[in-house]
């Protein structure tokens, strides 16, 4: 028998060592590769945001070169003479979002108060989910529903009443001047108000639930009514979080596209009446981008997109900073 064929115990150890070393190397390389891949992915998130900014700036350059700062102040929007200004669109965006906030915020707070303080435990989950489903309905559904169902109803039942009611009041009769079209800035604002409800409600609910029960119990203990507890304890304690939630809703309202596109009326002018047709930044882009002929027209629409992105970025960043501050306070 050949001795060399006999596997010596020493050789066994050697191969086992080699195997171990191989495994360890594999572990090491795997860790390096996987770690690097995750790092690259995380950085990709940042790259996307940077890419959005750079591409919008780049795409809108012709418009800035042609109009300069006047782009912000000009009211003309004329594809034939290639004169473009963003003011009507910015005005419409800000106005519709303001209407949405004026109506949406108190109602969202009401729903959040109901769900955290009043609602019986058994119904809480069901109603909470139902409200959140409002956020799940796609925005185009709000649009088609707003145009075919809500706007005609609003036109026949509410707008004439509003016009009559404020007809003799100075200032307000300008704001609520006819004719009742059904569609317009006010309708868009109302639909936006419904759309932001679930977003503001869900954040507000979350922050309401962070109030320590001891605080509330102490207030109840000295004889406060439920409303006084909410007004004097819950709301002051959660103020920062509420503002954060409102800003988040505002960010949504400013950038909302399809629902507004259906009911805004697409008029590039600023009317004193909030029932008049108007336009918003996002509606202008959605309506006109594919039909835009000529570089300057396209660039102007991209410039509108850049303005929208800039505004929403600031609002959303402020919202996040407020909510982050809250989390740090809680020591989470």
């Amino acid at each position: 028998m050949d001795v060399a064929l006999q596997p010596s115990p020493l050789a066994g150890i050697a191969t086992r060592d080699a195997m171990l070393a191989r495994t360890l190397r594999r572990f090491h390389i795997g860790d390096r590769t996987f770690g690097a891949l995750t790092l690259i992915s995380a950085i990709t998130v940042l790259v996307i945001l940077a890419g959005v900014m750079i591409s919008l700036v780049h795409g809108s350059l012709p418009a800035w070169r042609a109009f300069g700062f006047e782009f912000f102040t000009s009211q003309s929007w004329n594809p034939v003479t290639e004169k473009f200004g963003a003011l009507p669109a910015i005005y419409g965006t800000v106005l519709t979002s303001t209407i949405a906030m004026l109506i949406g915020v108190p109602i969202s707070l009401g729903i959040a108060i109901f769900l955290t303080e009043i609602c019986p435990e058994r119904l809480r989950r069901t109603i909470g989910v139902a409200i959140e489903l409002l956020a799940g309905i796609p925005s185009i559904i709000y649009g088609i529903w707003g145009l075919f169902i809500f706007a005609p109803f609003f036109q026949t039942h509410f707008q004439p009443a509003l016009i009559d009611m404020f007809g003799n009041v100075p200032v307000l009769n300008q704001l609520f001047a006819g004719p009742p079209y059904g569609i317009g800035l006010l309708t868009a604002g109302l639909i936006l108000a419904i759309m932001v409800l679930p977003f503001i409600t869900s954040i507000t609910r979350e922050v309401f639930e962070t109030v320590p029960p001891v605080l509330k119990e102490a207030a109840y203990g000295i004889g406060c009514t439920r409303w006084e507890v909410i007004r004097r304890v819950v709301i002051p304690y959660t103020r920062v979080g509420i503002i954060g939630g409102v800003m988040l809703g505002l960010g949504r309202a400013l950038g909302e596209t399809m629902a507004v596109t259906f009911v805004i009326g697409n008029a590039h002018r600023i009317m004193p009446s909030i029932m008049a047709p108007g336009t918003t930044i996002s509606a202008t882009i959605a309506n006109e981008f594919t039909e835009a002929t000529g570089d300057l027209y396209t660039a102007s629409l991209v410039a509108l997109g850049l303005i929208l992105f800039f505004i929403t970025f600031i609002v959303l960043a402020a919202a996040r900073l407020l909510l982050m501050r809250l989390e740090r306070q809680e020591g989470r």
Partner: protein
Amino acid sequence: MIVSASKSNARYARRRHTNLLATALSIGATGFGLTWLVLILIVLVVKGVGGLSPSVFSEMTPPPGGEGGLLNPIMGSLIMTVMAVALGTPLGIMAGTYMAEYGRYTKLTMIVRFINDILLSAPSIVVGLFVYEIMVRQMGHFSAWAGAVALAILVIPVVVRTTEDMLLLVPNTLREASAAMGLPQWLVIRHVAYRAARAGIVTGVLLAVARITGETAPLLFTALNNQFFSWDLNAPMASLPVVIFQFALSPYEDWQQLAWTGALLVTAAVLALSILARMLASKRMPS
């Protein structure tokens, strides 16, 4: 004595009235919100069910006045959704993994979380413009690829957020136990952390699908629309939301009917997905 007692009674009555009023108002607010949900769903069912027939699922979109269905937009939506999930999910999960595992306390994680939260609610039409600039303009034509990339950009922040949140919920003791047995970190993550957080991560992907199913704005000038169905990913592709948009605003009645039917289908799909995601999340993670 009596005067002050009646005074304090009056004040007490006022406080109770205020309380009652506030309670009534917040119940009213909740009723207001629920009413819209019910109204929208009822209208969708009433208007949409009438148009539901087998031909909706078997025929292409018709020319005005013709007979037809929604086969090409349904297929287009499915294809682009699958592509978007295939592109966006791995990236989102990996980024979330970095934030929860490798770089939990790094500055980069904080920045990425901040930016990701902004992307989460950024206007989707801006994403459409972005993809138009980097893909459509460079290639010179609209394409299903561009539509899928635009949707993928909307998928990523949702998946990043849920992956990170779910991985952070995995107890560290699990990680330490497996690391003590000599597993390197990447295998700990793959075999222990992912497995523990699987239900949550799947929930995130479902929520992302629900989000992009109804998205219209980013598809308008990336995938555009197509009268016919084709497997060609370099060609424009129809999608349900864009067809709904086009048909609803058209003056033709049969197109408007198809738009309502499409709207019913999209909403049913989105709501089913979000309810499914919720059930999955609450079953596995009682929190």
